[in-house]
């Protein structure tokens, strides 16, 4: 035996289902309002906004009773329509600086009319004879051969430069440290440890440079730098004292001994 209560619940659920589908079918509150306004069966310009507001609020009420969640914009519209309805019921207040309720209602009617007009225009547009549907383009277009007359801009100078580039390229070789001309600090330190004992008096650092490293500028620079770094190390270790009388003057060193 069917349970009447269960039937009622099912009915209720069905109604809710229908309503949910309907809400989903509307593209926003304005669309819903436009649909509702159709039930008034009058020209949109003569529509009763008050009745429309009533209908909309009734719809929202029903949705709420059926616990259907409405998107926020539907609720915003409901609030606005409730406000508009209450304003429409009151006699206009001439001291109110804002727009009159009649103006607001007229604007809503305008929006509905405009939306309806656009719907209608869209339908007429889509009903036109369309390319690829009723009207067709040439199926066998004869391609325009675009004969490109390409001129390569190139002068004799470009050519010569290019040649020079290829011929001089091998002169640029990848950078590699040339170990033959490098004197390392470790080497210098090693050397100086054996030599500083003889520096009981102030002696120029230059005089400590190894033989054969003072001729070519590249070797001299490397050896000087290595030895300079080495004496700094030795001074730090307290084995020697360094002095320089002026900027850029010769650097001199002396063995510190034990006291």
């Amino acid at each position: 035996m069917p349970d009447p209560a269960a039937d009622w619940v099912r009915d209720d659920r069905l109604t809710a289902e229908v309503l949910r589908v309907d809400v989903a079918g509307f593209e926003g509150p304005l669309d819903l309002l436009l649909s509702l306004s159709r039930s008034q069966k009058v020209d949109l310009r003569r529509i009763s906004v008050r009745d429309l507001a009533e209908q909309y609020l009734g719809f929202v009420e029903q949705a709420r009773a059926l616990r259907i969640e409405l998107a926020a914009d539907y609720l915003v519209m409901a609030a606005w329509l409730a406000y508009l309805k209450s304003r429409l019921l009151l006699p206009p207040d001439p001291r109110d600086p804002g727009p009159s309720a009649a103006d607001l209602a007229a604007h809503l009617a305008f929006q509905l009319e405009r939306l309806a007009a656009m719907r209608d225009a869209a339908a007429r547009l889509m009903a036109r004879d369309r390319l690829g549907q009723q009207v067709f383009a040439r199926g066998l277009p004869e391609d325009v051969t675009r004969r490109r007359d390409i001129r390569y801009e190139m002068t004799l100078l470009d050519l010569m430069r290019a040649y020079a580039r290829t011929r001089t390229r091998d002169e640029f070789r990848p950078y590699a440290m040339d170990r033959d001309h490098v004197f390392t600090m470790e080497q210098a330190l090693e050397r100086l440890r054996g030599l500083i004992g003889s520096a009981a008096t102030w002696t120029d650092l230059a005089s400590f440079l190894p033989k054969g490293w003072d001729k070519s500028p590249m070797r001299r620079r490397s050896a000087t730098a290595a030895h300079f770094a080495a004496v700094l190390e030795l001074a730090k270790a307290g084995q020697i004292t360094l002095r320089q009388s002026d900027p850029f003057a010769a650097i001199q060193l002396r063995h510190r001994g034990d006291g």
Partner: protein
Amino acid sequence: MTQEPIEKSLFEVPPLAEQERMVEAILFASAEPVSLAEIASRMPHGCDPAEALVILRRRYEGRGVNLMKVGDAYAFRTAADLGHLMHKELRETRKLSRAAIETLAIVAYHQPVTRAEIEEIRGVAVSRGTVDQLMELDWIRLGRRRMTPGRPVTFVVTDSFLDHFGLESARDLPGLKELRAAGLLDNRPLPGAMTDDEDGAVTGQSELFED
């Protein structure tokens, strides 16, 4: 076949009948509308394709193929009443959503139009996919930015839209005049409310004038 020898001289302009043949050949060969400038550039110097086009258009009136004007361009198209013979050529098109169709109509009738204006007319947000789809179809494109606060982009319809819907220009949209006369294409702001900055700017301005 009769084929008159064509004077290829640089100095002699071909007779109008010959120019008409040339325009006919150029337009027949192309599936896309060809602009007047393009036609002229391919014809001998001194030709007047505009005049030849008038004659040609008349020649094809009522034929199985008609000469159509699309924006500044021209194209031959089959007569609409013969569409039923062309089922083999029918191109399957993706069905447009209601939102896309309405948005397209709003752009066409209200152009140049901003996204905010489209949303105001439809009463819902325009989804990104809708605009993308219409742009992909090459039916709408970006117009000039509106010179209002925020400098919003605007949308306008393309020549390809005109071609698809068989319109010479956007002025030929069905019912355009009536809609305009009814004031339904006006950008009428909500009284008093500042729904968006554009309308706000307009309202603000009129208020200033009234003070």
